[in-house]
């Protein structure tokens, strides 16, 4: 499959996701994660920064993609938008790690077809930052992410409405992004 086709697939999936398709959204985010990981590795290597925490950048980028998803203009292509967000986050991360100069980041499209292996990531930024959230938010984020529970199951366990769980999850993710951003200042 050529790059253009992959991009059209991505745009199609994003449209389905924005219309509410959870399974497709998950699949799309997995694919985006692989591409961003390849892109970040390349950028870290070229700036001569070790790639120990490439995965943190991948996660920060995914979070930004999720929270800023209504800044995609809904056109035929998704990759340029994903690439712009990833580039923004990678440059931030390199700056944070004191890379005095960062090699220009290659065009995102060039790294799209680069599947990567599994990520062995345990004590990450995300873990530390999540543990600073209010208890209820922590509980909701962990229950859905680490324990893989559904919104409905989480809502039942905490005797909350599903809508309230969604709102709390959204707030938690926003605070997480905010905490990440503060780290880079």
């Amino acid at each position: 499959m050529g790059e253009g086709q992959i991009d059209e697939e991505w745009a199609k999936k994003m449209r389905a996701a924005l219309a509410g398709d959870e399974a497709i959204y998950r699949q799309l985010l997995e694919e985006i994660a692989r591409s961003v990981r390849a892109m970040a590795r390349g950028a870290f290597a070229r700036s001569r920064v070790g790639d120990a925490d490439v995965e943190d950048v991948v996660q920060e980028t995914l979070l930004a993609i999720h929270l800023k998803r209504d800044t995609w203009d809904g056109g035929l292509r998704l990759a340029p938008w994903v690439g712009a967000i990833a580039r923004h986050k990678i440059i931030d991360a390199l700056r944070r790690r004191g890379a005095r100069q960062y090699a220009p980041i290659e065009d995102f499209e060039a790294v799209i077809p680069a599947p990567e292996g599994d990520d062995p990531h345990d004590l990450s930024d995300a873990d530390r930052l999540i543990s600073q959230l209010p208890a209820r938010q922590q509980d909701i984020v962990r229950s859905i992410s680490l324990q893989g529970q559904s919104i409905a199951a989480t809502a039942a366990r905490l005797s909350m409405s599903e809508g309230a769980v969604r709102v709390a999850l959204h707030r938690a993710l926003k605070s997480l992004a905010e905490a990440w951003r503060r780290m880079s200042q």
Partner: protein
Amino acid sequence: MKTSDLIAALAVDPKPRGMALGQRFAIALAFGAIVSACAFALMVGPRHDIARAMGSMRFDWKFVDTIALAAPTGFLAWRLLRPVAKAGPWMIGLFVPAIALGGSLAMELMMTPSDLWLTKLVGSNALHCLMLIPLLSIPPLAALLFVMRAGAPASPRIAGAVAGFAAAGLAATLYASNCTDDSPLFVATWYTLATAIVVAAGAILGDRLLRW
């Protein structure tokens, strides 16, 4: 936390809630403009001889200048919410007010004897202009920056500065109906200086508030 765990938490909520970004932006802009207009009406209001002034070319042209500033920069601020938007090509929008102002300035210099230039430039409302335009810019600038926090501008500083241009354009449109100095020499000097103050504030605030 593994990336797949994070993805699990993101994927359960694919559908964005609430109003689209463009809608929120439009509402913020309208809200800021209305608040500013009310403040203007309460504080000073239009000049008393406005009915007569409206027939004069110099008076009317002030609105061409200010609207030529507000409209393209307001649109540009909206475009810059997207991370893929490049500010560069759109900055051409800033030529619109520059041309409107430059053209009227050239006419004024040709039509007015040179010994009057300084008097017209200094005018009688310079301080008023330098205070009122930034003051009236506060509501639209605040509203714009607030809504733009939901965006993802590639350069927060530039996005903030552009919001400053748009806010100053709105404020200057209101103020122009109060100001009795209609010479393009006055407008080119003091309106521009007042706009620069607002743009600088927008850049500084944008750099802090619009980071993501």
